[in-house]
């Protein structure tokens, strides 16, 4: 008898179909605009998925995810512009840098209870943002780093690349979430003392999940850097972290695939709200409040559950 759920065929097929659909979409409506929006949506998807894997499963909400994004992006910027390395080096470098930060920050903060961990990570992101401004001679200060070379020049091809990365990461993290990894992380959420009594080294698992989460966030940061062709301290902003958390909430916490859906939905939605440009953040915040109250399980995941249950006898 299978102990762990494993990847579920129906969902995998659904994911594949969605991926193909997203890939084809810009070819139907040509023009740089759509490709740009979808690329950003996909990158937010990567950020959201990486957040959900750690925070969604363990329940330890990380309010400083933007830190890993920022250091990954800046790593890309540094290597590319200051050290003149080719853009492809950014990808492993950004992951490595983010992972190092995760280990260094994880050790002292992960033993703190929920809200304190969240706020410690928030404080860390704020510090990083400040440091980028303070050491402006090296980091470019407010302006950040400019003239980053793109990974792939053709926007459509870059989009497909990012989409592929998103698909790969989602697949990997979904599989992990439904394997013993996910079980352990969910158990940690349930009761840590009992986890110890069950023989699990919880600190190791908590840090490892943060490291994995950070690695992919950093990777997303590098992808973003090579898309925008510049990085600025704004990447470390609290707003970025909150946006991502909102996306995960919309999608359904802990479901992994829901985070992707949430990211896509919200990015597209805000583009639709472009006319009310200044209202964007307001809408996000109100939406978050609404969801916290009325839809704590999100929108995307419950809808997918309903679709699945349609085919089943009651």
């Amino acid at each position, binding site marked *: 008898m299978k*102990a762990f759920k494993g990847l579920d065929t129906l969902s995998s097929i659904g994911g594949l179909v969605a991926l193909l659909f997203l890939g084809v979409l810009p070819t139907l409506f040509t023009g740089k605009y759509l490709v740009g929006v979808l690329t950003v949506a996909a990158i937010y998807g990567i950020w959201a998925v990486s957040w959900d894997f750690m925070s969604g499963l363990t329940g330890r909400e990380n309010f400083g995810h933007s830190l890993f994004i920022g250091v990954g992006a800046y790593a890309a910027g540094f290597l590319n512009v200051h050290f003149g390395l080719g853009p492809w080096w950014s990808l492993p470098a950004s992951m490595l840098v983010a992972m190092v930060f995760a280990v260094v920050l994880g050790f002292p903060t992960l033993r703190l209870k929920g809200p304190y961990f969240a706020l410690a990570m928030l404080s860390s992101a704020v510090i990083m943002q400040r440091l980028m401004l303070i050491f402006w001679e090296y980091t470019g200060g407010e302006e950040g780093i400019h003239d980053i070379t793109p990974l792939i020049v053709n926007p459509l091809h870059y989009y497909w690349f990012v989409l592929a990365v998103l698909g790969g990461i989602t697949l990997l993290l979904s599989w992990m979430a439904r394997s013993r990894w996910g079980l352990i992380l969910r158990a940690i959420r349930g009761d840590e003392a009992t986890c110890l009594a069950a023989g699990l080294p919880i600190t190791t698992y908590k840090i490892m999940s943060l490291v994995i989460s950070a690695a992919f966030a950093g990777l997303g940061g590098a992808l973003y850097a090579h898309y925008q062709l510049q990085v600025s301290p704004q990447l470390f902003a609290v707003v970025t972290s909150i946006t991502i958390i909102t996306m995960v909430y919309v999608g359904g916490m802990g479901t992994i695939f829901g985070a992707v859906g949430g990211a896509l939905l919200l990015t597209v939605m805000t583009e639709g709200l472009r006319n009310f440009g200044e209202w964007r953040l307001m809408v996000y915040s109100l939406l978050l409040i609404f969801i916290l109250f009325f839809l704590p399980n999100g929108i995307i995941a419950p809808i997918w559950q309903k679709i699945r249950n349609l085919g089943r006898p009651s």
Partner: protein
Amino acid sequence: MNALLQVKQLNKHFGGLHVLKNFNMELHKGEIVGILGPNGAGKTTLFNLLTGFIPADSGEVLLHDQPIRQLKANAIVGLGMARTFQLCRPFVGLTVLENVLVGSLGPRVQTQDLGERAMHLLAQVGLADKAQQASELLSYGDLRRLEIARALATEPELLLLDEPFAGLGSSEIEALSVLIRQLHSEQHLTILLIEHKLREFMQLVSRVVAIDFGEIIAEGSPTDIVKHPRVIEAYIGKQNPLNLDNHA
């Protein structure tokens, strides 16, 4: 042959309070030993010290002659000593089966098919039909069984049960006693058990260690312990140990 578990001069202070005083104890393989004492005697502290949940001030704890006092709680489980908690805390959000599975992930488990093994354990404790239920919805008696199943899942040699009968009704107590006896005989488990209700104790354990204020006040068979003057003294005013109708 050396004892399975040796406790030597174990001490613990909480602030100014000397909670456990030069505690010495030996446990041999195959025994069921009970630790008896009124509330506040230091029983749960002893368990927490033995299983690595709180650090001791001084002393030694040897499992199979290996010192374990400084080890982390999960490492001790990996060496074969598992425990249950007085206040059952299931993994909220996980099913009953998943709760047991979590216990199955340690280094002592050799089986490949974890799912089957978990179902087998649930069947042993009588929870097989509730495998897919949300664990936080179980009744108190069932939660106790789940605790035991989860501890068993770690493939222990020595099982520490912290007040397993607390809060249960008489028929549940009876059933649980039967289960414990079964586990002892069929699985060759060594069991150390804390209780402050003497009645349940008497029928289950082969040896009793009575403690009060962090010290051992008597040791012996259940029938001897009941007559021991210091034990009676410790219990006067708290509960009548000879009152065999007392369930509270």
